[in-house]
């Protein structure tokens, strides 16, 4: 049973940091547990690759300790860390067959042939490579080669962790569906700790049990996909997760009422008096604002966007732009419609961080 502990890990490439902004990776305390899949998700430059490189040993953190189980590996080189890695581009031996490629990490560890054969067959089956096992890797498509890379990463059952660095970059968009699903079922079948870096929300949310959302060197939320959607702890999570992201509106909040652009919005929980705080915002996802024929807040429709499987309207509530989900048949640009905001899915943010209210 191996877990990986980030014990106040932080990193600054430029030597001794004095200000918080000097850190490329701000201090993080977290335990990754065996059998779970984690994703590091964020825009370019957010620090996710730095964190992955610290775990793999490419970067020695300027602060904190990295533990594999109880063992301090902070200063150990990569090859002594017992990890498997899958990179953006295929790393395989062109002259070997698919089976030999998959077996290679096991042969290196001198496992018995029957053990190797059984494991290679198992992994090949999971990745739909069985039919190709005796083919040479040379001449296979980039997609197939990357599947072999994934297989090589997954073939050892005794690793502390498998690290994936944007592994679907070279995969044709039409095949990404298939491989995302494959990776997820492989994760369920194998008892490995997996850490997956990506800037693609679908890859992260589909693959991982827990997603670490990173922005500007900081882990702003570590949560299950549903937490990130239903209860973003930071405005960045609301913005970054979901297409389109969450609506934010400056608001005055007191008790279970908020005032937005002169209108009253009901809240699901009870808050203290935040009416004088300038940094208070209400956050609500487009999915939880609906157009109603009953009473609601008056909003003016500025634009209707048809996404095929759903339709969205850009509306103005007072002077506040909002995106709301609308029924299939609704048109009416320029119209004033009544909108209803679901109190149970409306959150209060102070200085970008969600504050928890009291149950009513």
């Amino acid at each position, binding site marked *: 049973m191996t877990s990986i502990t980030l014990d106040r890990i932080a990193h600054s490439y430029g030597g001794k940091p004095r200000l918080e902004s000097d850190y490329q990776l701000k201090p993080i305390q977290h335990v990754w547990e065996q059998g779970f899949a984690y994703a590091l998700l964020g825009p370019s430059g957010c620090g996710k690759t730095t964190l992955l490189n610290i775990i793999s040993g490419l970067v020695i953190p300027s602060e904190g300790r990295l533990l594999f189980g109880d063992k301090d590996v902070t200063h150990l080189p990569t090859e002594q860390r017992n990890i498997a890695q899958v990179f953006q581009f295929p790393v395989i031996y062109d002259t070997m067959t698919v089976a030999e490629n998959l077996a290679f990490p096991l042969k290196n560890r001198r496992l018995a042939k029957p053990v190797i054969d059984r494991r290679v067959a198992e992994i090949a089956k999971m990745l739909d490579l069985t039919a190709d096992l005796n083919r040479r890797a040379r001449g296979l498509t980039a997609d197939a080669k990357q599947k072999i890379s994934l297989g090589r990463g997954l073939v050892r059952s005794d690793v502390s962790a498998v690290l994936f660095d944007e592994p679907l970059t070279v995969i044709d*968009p*039409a095949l990404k569906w298939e491989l995302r*699903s494959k990776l997820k*079922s492989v994760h369920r079948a194998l008892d490995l700790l997996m850490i997956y870096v990506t800037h693609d929300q679908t890859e992260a*949310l589909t693959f991982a049990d827990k997603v670490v959302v990173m922005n500007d060197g900081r882990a702003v939320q570590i949560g299950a*996909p549903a937490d990130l959607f239903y209860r973003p702890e930071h405005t960045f999570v609301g913005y970054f997760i979901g297409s389109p992201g969450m609506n934010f509106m400056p608001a005055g909040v007191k008790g279970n009422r908020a005032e937005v652009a002169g209108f009253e919005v009901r809240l699901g929980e009870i808050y203290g008096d935040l009416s004088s705080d300038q940094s208070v915002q209400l956050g609500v996802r487009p999915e939880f604002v609906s157009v109603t024929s009953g009473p609601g807040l008056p909003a003016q429709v500025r634009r209707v966007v048809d*996404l*095929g*499987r759903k339709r969205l309207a850009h509306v103005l509530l007072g002077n506040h732009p909002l995106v709301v989900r609308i029924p299939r048949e609704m048109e009416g640009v320029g119209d004033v419609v009544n909108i209803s905001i679901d109190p149970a899915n409306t959150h209060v943010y102070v200085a970008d961080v969600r504050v928890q209210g009291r149950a009513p």
Partner: protein
Amino acid sequence: MTFVLDHIGFDVGGVRVIDDVCLTFQPASLNVLLGPTLAGKTTIMRLMAGLDQPATGSLLHDGQDVTGTPVRKRSVAMVYQQFINYPSLTVYANIASPLRVAGVAKSEIDTRVREAARVLRLDNLLQRMPGQLSGGQQQRTAIARALVKRAGLVLLDEPLANLDYKLREELREELPRIFSHTGAILIYATTEPSEALLLAGSTVTLSQGRVTQFGPTSKVYRDPANIDAARVFSDPPLNELPIAKQNERIMVQQDRSLGRPNAFSHLPDGTYRLAFRADAASIGPAATGELNFSGTVLVTEISGSESFIHVDVGIGTWVCLVSGVHDWAPGQTATVNIDPTRVFIFDSSGQRVQANVVQGAEA
């Protein structure tokens, strides 16, 4: 200012990769070329630009035959998937470069560069070098360079593919607006159906170098003329089921009958392919309508605002859409309920059968 492709064909190594393409693009229009990798999008753009010469057919720009006209003498601008800028020139000089080459007066260059920079929100970055810019800013610089040329034909080849999805969402909204007042014919290649829908305008669906449909984007999406157009315009992939109609009954394989659903009452006997998109099916514990299939959940994919549930229904694997984030566990049994008003039916040659059933489907 129309642009016409008249029976255009193109060969690579003796193989016809673009086959008899006929398209007429209207002035000041936005047109999406939608298709998977290798469908011919880039090749068609290169032919339109004059970078390659067609093997058959001709190209007409504003009524004039431009088939043999070299690219330099055409009124065309192109933006590629890879950000292409001159690394040793400032953003200003990058944007100005096509105008310098064309010998435009300095004061005119300055006016146009500043105007384009304002529209693309690069005003404060004009003195930077491309290496100091983010990916989004670099691509905006390349787009500004296409904008200042005031070309009659602007070709954008998957211009946002290399950007983070949040940036992509933002730029996708801006792009049509940026070019809308120029009067140019805009051609935008993408592999993503959602991108085509967001851009709106008109859409050409492409499969293996052939045009399968061309029309207003929402019409092509809602009313695909054939199975190739429907497949290309579906993400996740189109759910499909071969069926046969015999003596009023709809058969799925030899042994399973769907009974006599109203949805198919107007079809003559024969074999067909029934197809529906992920959002035309709901998933639940029990059957709710006449078109339902029980199966086992394989995997759930979560896109941020939506969940796609892959279900093995014995005769194939289908994908259903649920709004919000839900994790249906693998192995769980579930019933797929298909909305019969939103199925497409194709005959054995792949042509859409306009069965009465589909009328009012999107009402």
